[in-house]
């Protein structure tokens, strides 16, 4: 096992081991660089994962205290759990369902395409689809995405059969089992999918791509990765010239350690990443690191989401097999005549009995609720996920009144739905219900958003240092050797599940970092 010295200032320190951080670690070590990968959570394994929703939640989820505010329903239903993300080696790639969609061309140009939407702060990305395509291709190959690279699609389960039949009735054209980073055939040393269900609980067969058992062991095999689980970064430090010198973290025993670094890349997911920059404020950077624009923490996005569950007269058993077993992509297009900008995807979803009870309609009781529970085996479900509007008032801030286990202010997550988000959700709910009623649903439920799994935008990317925190390489405008490597970089959210775009940006960023180091620019 490779260990680098705490005083080794030639290493790249990466904070967080999920889609962004885990991928960046592998890419950089493959290029010959030395990496210290700091992960706040513990290391699990496919053997340690459990087919038990609540037990798995305790094992994987980020449960450190957070607070919420704003008019979004999550603040009412889950006031201390704004996000369902993970604190474990592999981060939220242990929990994700595998949906791997490229952005559409116009989604990189949201401001130009949608115009000036009042109450939103739309921008175009400083990147185009054409620039991203070669890196998307590498991400798809790395992750083994079905329906790319000659990899067959996954077989559809019962939940998909219901979605597909309904989609035909509604005249939808693009409905299939999706582009998914779950092996439909053995690949890359991992087996094909056993249709276990429990995609959200860590894939016990390893058929689903996760940095835990792909990128990270490959990086370790180079001899250039020092992975340190249970290492919670508390602050990033700099010298008098404003250059980053390293990080301070709490180790498993709570002792503070100072790791020096040549470059620091932060990939703590879009709530912890801005929190770390803000908690690292100094006399040189009184508003937090990389925050001369005041944009750190702003434009928090979480996607327009909602679910529709429908009861049928015959069995479905939605929980059998892959959780995100299929997709309808027709509504992802840009068509403002529907009454909103942006689009949304319709993706099957299923929950086991324990989480179905917890998330179907939080706070509900009585006969309407128990009717759904009584019909559990005859229910089909879909998740609706679409582009939400970036707003500078939707933001992650430090809550000075609430401290974490290390005595640091926790993150407060404020979100108000934009009228565009509300209009899109209404349309998506109605279409989901129509789809299921077209194939015989007797009752439907509009399930409100779960705690956010897609957390985006809090260190947004822009060529203009006044409008964004990072440039098109994820490098902060203010500090050359400080990078952001997760979904915080997103300028806008697009309709697509974000993981593959995060991986793609990390692959692209690794080239830039390696070149900058070789040219002595950082």
């Amino acid at each position, binding site marked *: 096992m490779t260990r680098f010295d705490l005083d080794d200032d030639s290493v790249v320190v990466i904070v967080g081991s999920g889609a962004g951080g885990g991928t960046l670690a592998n890419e950089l070590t493959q290029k010959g660089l030395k990496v210290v990968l700091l992960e706040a959570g513990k290391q699990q394994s496919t053997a340690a994962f*459990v*087919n*038990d*929703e*609540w*037990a798995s939640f305790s094992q994987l989820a980020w449960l450190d205290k957070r607070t919420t505010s704003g008019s979004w329903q999550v603040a009412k239903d889950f006031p201390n759990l704004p996000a369902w993300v993970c604190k474990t080696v592999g981060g939220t790639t242990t929990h994700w369902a595998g949906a791997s969609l490229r952005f559409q061309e116009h989604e990189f140009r949201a401001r130009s395409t949608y115009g000036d939407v009042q109450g939103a702060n739309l921008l175009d990305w400083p990147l185009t689809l054409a620039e991203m395509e070669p890196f998307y291709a590498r991400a798809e190959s790395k992750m083994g995405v079905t329906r790319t690279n000659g990899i*067959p*699609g*996954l*077989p*559809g*389960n*019962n939940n*998909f*059969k*219901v979605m*597909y*039949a309904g989609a035909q009735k509604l005249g939808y054209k693009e*409905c*299939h*089992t999706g582009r998914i980073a779950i092996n*439909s*055939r*053995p690949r890359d040393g991992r087996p*094909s*999918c*056993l*249709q*276990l*269900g*429990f995609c959200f609980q860590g894939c*016990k*067969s390893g058929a689903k791509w996760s940095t835990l058992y792909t990128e990270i062991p490959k990086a370790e095999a180079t001899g250039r990765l020092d992975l340190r689980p249970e290492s919670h970064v508390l602050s990033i430090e700099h010298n008098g010239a404003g250059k980053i010198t390293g990080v301070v973290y709490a180790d498993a025993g709570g002792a503070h350690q100072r790791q020096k670094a040549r470059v620091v890349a932060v990939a703590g997911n879009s709530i912890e990443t801005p929190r770390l920059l803000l908690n690292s404020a100094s006399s040189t950077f009184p508003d937090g690191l990389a925050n001369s624009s005041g944009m750190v923490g702003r434009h928090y996005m979480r996607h327009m989401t909602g679910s529709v569950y429908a009861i049928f007269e*015959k*069995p*479905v*058993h939605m*929980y*059998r*097999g892959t959780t995100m077993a*299929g997709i309808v992509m027709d509504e992802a297009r840009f068509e403002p005549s529907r009454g909103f900008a942006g689009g949304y995807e319709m993706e099957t979803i299923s929950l*086991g*009995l*324990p989480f*179905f*009870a*917890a998330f179907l309609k939080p*706070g509900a*009781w*009585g*006969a309407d*609720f*128990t009717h759904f*529970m*009584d019909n*559990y*085996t005859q229910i089909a479900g879909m998740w609706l996920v679409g582009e939400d509007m970036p707003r500078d008032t939707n933001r992650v801030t430090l809550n000075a009144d609430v401290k974490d286990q290390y005595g640091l202010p926790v993150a407060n997550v404020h979100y108000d739905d934009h009228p565009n988000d509300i209009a899109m959700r209404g349309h998506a709910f109605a279409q989901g219900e129509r789809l299921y009623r077209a*194939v015989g649903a007797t009752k439907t439920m509009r399930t409100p958003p779960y705690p956010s799994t897609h957390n985006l935008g809090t260190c947004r990317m822009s060529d203009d240092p006044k409008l964004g925190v990072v440039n098109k390489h994820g490098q902060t405008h203010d500090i050359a050797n400080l990078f952001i490597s997760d979904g915080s970089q997103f300028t806008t959210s697009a309709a697509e599940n974000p993981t593959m775009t995060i991986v793609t940006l990390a692959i692209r960023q690794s080239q830039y970092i390696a070149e900058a180091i070789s040219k002595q620019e950082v």
Partner: protein
Amino acid sequence: MPRTPSESTMTRGTMLQGTGVLMGTLAASSVLASLAPSRTWALPLHALSQAEGETILQFGRVLYPHKALPTAVYALLVKDLDAEAVRDAGVAALLREGSASLDAASGGKFVSASSAKRLAAVKHIEGTPYFSKVRSTCITSLYNNEMAFAHFGYQGPSWPKGGYLHRGFDDLTWLPKPPASASPPAAG
């Protein structure tokens, strides 16, 4: 973890301690009878009185009314709250006072009131800390145990059984089969 009746404190023991005991019998026809070590069950209470336990059990039935769900599952709600009351005197007081408030709201004994009066009493206390405590505990107590899994038809952990690839992940036959272009066949 989901609990089985055998590993819970629902025992057949006769040396019962504490302040009360809830007892019941699973119907022989119940799918759960095969899961339990015995059709008769008993739940000893350590912090709550028998009357408080019975009130909470009936409160659970009003909140989440499943006609066919055996009382043994609702007893898990009482078991979990009793255990919490043992650890936390504040919870014990909340449950004691709350149960009394349900009696008061039903103009007598909540457990012997008519179903209409029980529902009215529950609506009367909706939003109180007691209501919220019992309701939120119901979500895990009632629906995260093997008896509930069997009752509602959820098959629980699939890994020990090799997943659903050969156990019905695509056995739905009441709708047309999607074409292979949309849903390709599984690997070999």
